[in-house]
């Protein structure tokens, strides 16, 4: 919390926002929005490493699947490069996390427990297991050493690839931030598409065109899913999705769509024949994928800072009668007003 410029306050800086009232009277009885436009939620504390990690995790997961399938199909060129990409992604991911946490011990502290209620805990175990198995598979793919362990690693890595590529969507969806939580059904597909596109793009760029057919397909298919799922997500979010249309999240989202579409088109149309088109397309898709993750990341911050996005949907739920909310008033005759039942609570609870 730093002092704002002389003569201004958070209130003044928010001048013009719909929450601002006259400075004298900050509220009225029965206020529907918070006084002073103060947010209800906290913005996440995560820094730039986290969207990078979203990307590298997706890259590692999808690359492992791609490599494993390529192995099975007898495409060692693609497989070896796929394992390398997976290894790079799996190696970079903890590095980013440790950078965010501050020191390595803090990463390993997460292996103290396994909590199914925590996508991050589950993800950490997936990441750790993936890391080991990808490493084994990659060693075998490049050196032929430890063949049995490598084969096992390959299978495990491929099996974990899906979760590794998508669990970060579950991670952000399981928060109170409206733009993340309300997109919980779409976000995994956005991330899955993005993961496929990222892995495909890297492999496309690196693998000789002759062997890179699956990679090109993955790139294009992933890009299509990524863009389509994003569109669907934004549509379904409605007003809560406004952060995707303004500020950094909006700009990053636009860039992501443009670059991903352009890159995918380049690869689809010219990727097989033109090395330059393949490289350019791969670069664009990679950048698009990163931008997409950044867009989602930033949208969360913007969403948390908007009290209306938190309060209004909740108030609407109550007014629709979907829930009674957390408030209880006695009825005029003194009996407790419990006529509106709240929905059953499901899932893992504490």
């Amino acid at each position, binding site marked *: 919390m730093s002092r704002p410029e002389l*003569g*201004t*306050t958070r*209130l*003044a800086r928010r001048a013009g926002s719909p929450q601002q009232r*006259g*400075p*004298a*009277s900050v509220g009225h009885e029965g206020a529907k929005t918070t006084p002073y436009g103060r947010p209800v939620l906290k913005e996440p504390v995560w820094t730039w490493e986290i969207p990078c990690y979203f990307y590298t995790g997706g890259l590692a997961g999808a690359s492992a699947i791609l490599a494993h399938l390529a192995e099975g199909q007898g495409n060692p060129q693609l497989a070896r490069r796929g394992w390398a990409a997976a290894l790079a992604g799996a190696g970079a991911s903890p590095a980013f996390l440790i950078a965010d946490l501050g020191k390595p011990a803090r990463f390993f502290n997460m292996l103290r427990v396994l909590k199914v209620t925590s996508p991050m805990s589950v993800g950490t175990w997936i990441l750790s297991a993936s890391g080991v198995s990808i490493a084994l598979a990659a060693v075998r793919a490049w050196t032929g050493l430890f063949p049995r362990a490598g084969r096992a690693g390959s299978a495990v890595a491929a099996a974990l690839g899906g979760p590794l590529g998508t669990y970060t969507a579950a991670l952000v969806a399981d928060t109170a931030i409206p733009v993340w939580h309300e997109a919980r059904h779409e976000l995994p597909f956005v991330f899955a598409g993005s993961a496929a596109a990222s892995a495909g793009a890297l492999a496309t760029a690196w693998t000789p065109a002759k062997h890179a057919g699956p990679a090109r397909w993955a790139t294009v298919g992933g890009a299509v899913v990524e863009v389509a799922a994003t569109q669907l997500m934004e549509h379904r979010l409605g007003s809560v999705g406004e952060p995707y249309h303004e500020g950094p999240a909006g700009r990053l989202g636009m860039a992501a769509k443009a670059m991903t579409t352009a890159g995918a088109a380049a690869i689809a149309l010219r990727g097989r024949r033109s090395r330059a088109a393949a490289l350019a397309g791969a670069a664009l898709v990679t950048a698009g994928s990163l931008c997409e993750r950044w867009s989602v990341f930033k949208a969360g911050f913007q969403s948390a800072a908007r009290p209306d996005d938190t309060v209004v949907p909740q108030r609407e739920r109550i007014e629709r009668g979907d829930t009674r909310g957390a408030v209880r008033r006695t009825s005029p005759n003194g009996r407790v007003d419990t006529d509106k039942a709240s929905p059953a609570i499901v899932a893992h609870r504490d």
Partner: protein
Amino acid sequence: MPGLGTSFGRGGATTFQQDLQNSDCILIMGSNMAEQHPVGFQWVIEAKERGAKVIHVDPRYTRTSAMADLHVPIRGGTDIAFLGGLARYILENDRDFREYVRHYTNAHVIIKDGYQGPEAQPDDVGAAQASEAGSRAGGKPTGLFSGWQADEQLYRIDTWGYAGTSGETAGGGKVQAADVSGEQAHGAHGVNLDRGEPPQVDFDLEHPNCVFQILRRHFARYTPEMVADVCGVPEEQFVRVAEWLCDNSGRERTSAFVYAVGWTQHTHGVQNIRAASIVQLLLGNIGRPGGGIMALRGHANIQGSTDIPTLYNILPGYIPMPHPQQTPTLATFVEKNGPKTGAWGSLDTYMTSLLKAWFGEAATAENDFCFNHLPRIDGDHSIYPTMVRMIEGQCKGLFAVGQNPVVGSANARLQREALSSLEWLVVRDLAEIETASFWYDSPEIEAGETSPEQIGTEIFFLPAASHTEKDGTFTNTQRLLQWHHKAVESPEDCRSELHFMYHLGKRIKARVEGSTDPIDRPILDVTWDYPTQGPDDEPDAEAVLQEIGGRHADGSYVGKYQELAADGSTACGSWIHAGIYNDGENQTARKKPHTEQNWIAPEWGWAWPSNRHILYNRASADPEGNPWSERKRYVWWSAEEGKWQSVGDDVDFPPTKAPDYVPEEDAEGMAAMRGTNPFILHPDGLGWLYAPTGLVDGPLPTHYEPHESPVDNALYGQRANPTRQEFDREDNPYHPPGSDVFPFVLSTYRLTEHHTAGGMSRTLPYLAELQPELFVEVSPELAQERGLRHADWATIVTARTAIEARVMVTDRVRPMTIGSHPPRTVHQVGLPYHWGRNGIAKGDAANELVSMVLDLNVHIAEYKVLTCDVRPGRRPRGKDLTAYVEGYRRRAGVLHEARHPGD
């Protein structure tokens, strides 16, 4: 405290905080209790939970208002108009508790014929000096009592007395006026009555000159309409307050009043409290559970530091300091200062015991018990005139001990001027407060007007011990002394004041040892041997407390003040504290959990006098000695046992004096007190609706405008309190009345999050962050008028200087509409005063703006109401500030000459 002293006899709250829970209605006025006394406020909440009405009358809507059933916004400084309105409402609607009023107050006493109240028309007065005021007032009554001496600006009070008496101290000079006022008025020394009976009475209350009728005439024009015009309180709201109070007073119900410095810090502060006392006496609420007047003090031991005073005009136990004219000997001192009847009838025993405590073996009957060792006062030696004497080079040394006048006193610049003029200054505090750092950091240094090289004051800063580092007692707001135990040794050079004073005294004694100069005799004779302990030779606070509580010649402890003797066989440092070591036990250190005793908790600490919690509690029973009602049972007479009983408190009455006791001829002291008279410190044993003596500005409270006010007095020709104490100096300029240049009313106040001048709060990270910056509270209307932006800066200007503060635009401050022909709007501005240049939370000090103008009764400054201007933006810096303020002075026509009569 003289307000309470003259009304009831003792200068302390008449009740205790826990008793507020028994109230049926609580009027909080001149206090922001929820903010300034949050923990005490739990008892108001308790009362509220039991169904009591809580009323808050205050210019601002505060955290107290938020908890009240009714907040009544009032124009600052008009409390007497409001309270006088209540008195009139009660009288005109026969809502007074007549039986109580008839027997327990002086309503039935007939006043001298020569007495004339402020309702007199200019022609009636016949005094030439009043005519000017009258002509200016356009037919309004003068607003002056009989005896006004325009040339001296003082009253001669001999017409104010009870008919048939002559003992009142004569007025006729500032010098003498100051003697009989102030803290000395405790018990109203100086009225002599034969066997405690006023000579002329009318129990039918119909004699035109009886107090009851005088009161009716005095307040006749304080109608609800007038209250609305003067205070800005709508009539309906005023009537609601009056009805709530009346409905909740009487046999079955009681109402309590709560006040603090919102009433005292005015040029008519004492009379504010007098007005409240009158209302409470009329309603019969004094001395009864759930009733009373709760005076809320702002500091841990502020009550204690008047009881055992560090005040110039009194000795411990409210004994007046001797005066050269009146008191060449102890006998004449006692005669002049002690009425023959009531508890003050034994002044000789109190005084002799005090002298024995101070001068020990040296004090003998032959040498008048060293009475002549005492210095004499013959004028106002209070702190403000003393600061002026410093500027004039007459006072050369100052000890500022736990006190920060540069932030806490009115006209901070003048305070610094005084400090800069000293030869030496000793500052003792926990942190380096502004009073210690003024020589290198001050607005004057910032403006380039002075520099350390030009300030010749030699300064000693001595670090103090905290409350956890010493034993001792605080006397809280309800007269309760509580012992606090030492927990740890103080660090490094930090020492208690006990240590400082004791060892300084030792050194001074050593320096005059062997001196034959008579001026050194008192120092040589003063007893100064207290046992010390610990590595720092800390004096034993218990030994000091034992001296205060008193001993007999055989060394045994005095059990109660009635044991004190005038023959030198007892030594007692403070007669009101006699018994504090009863049974050899430190009574103040008793800490029996409240859960293990009755709700009064008499075994927790010790309340003076004699561990009484509700004073004058004889009044909780009817004249026959029966409780007024079962619901309000507190003290009653048991004929079977021949003594007074109570629900658990000490009875504030001779324990075996029957209700039907009538004094014999020539009875003196307590023997001259009827069995029906609850106010035993008064010579007549009555609650004083009308104060025949003790006050310099009138026997009854009268509405005057504050010294600086935007409007004229709607009731009288006399604008402000005629006796107010001014300092007409170039460095203390005043605003002309009604000045357009300073159109707004400013009130200073405190916040929960800080403490007084900030030395104990601005230095603490946890408190500093809660209110980090000085702010000024203004209404949306004023913000619009002056272009002030919320949270931006504003400059607040008076003729003294200008300061800057953040703007708080809030609906909690509202402009007041006053007067009816035509109505006009008065804007009020609120400014907390805690900030200064040191500590963590820094800012300009509000008291830079306040002028020195005092209530002559007690020499307290008018911090609560002054006029000002407010402008957007920060204040000018350096020399520009000087020019800026000078411009204001010029435009306002601020002159330095004495005021005109009637002003």
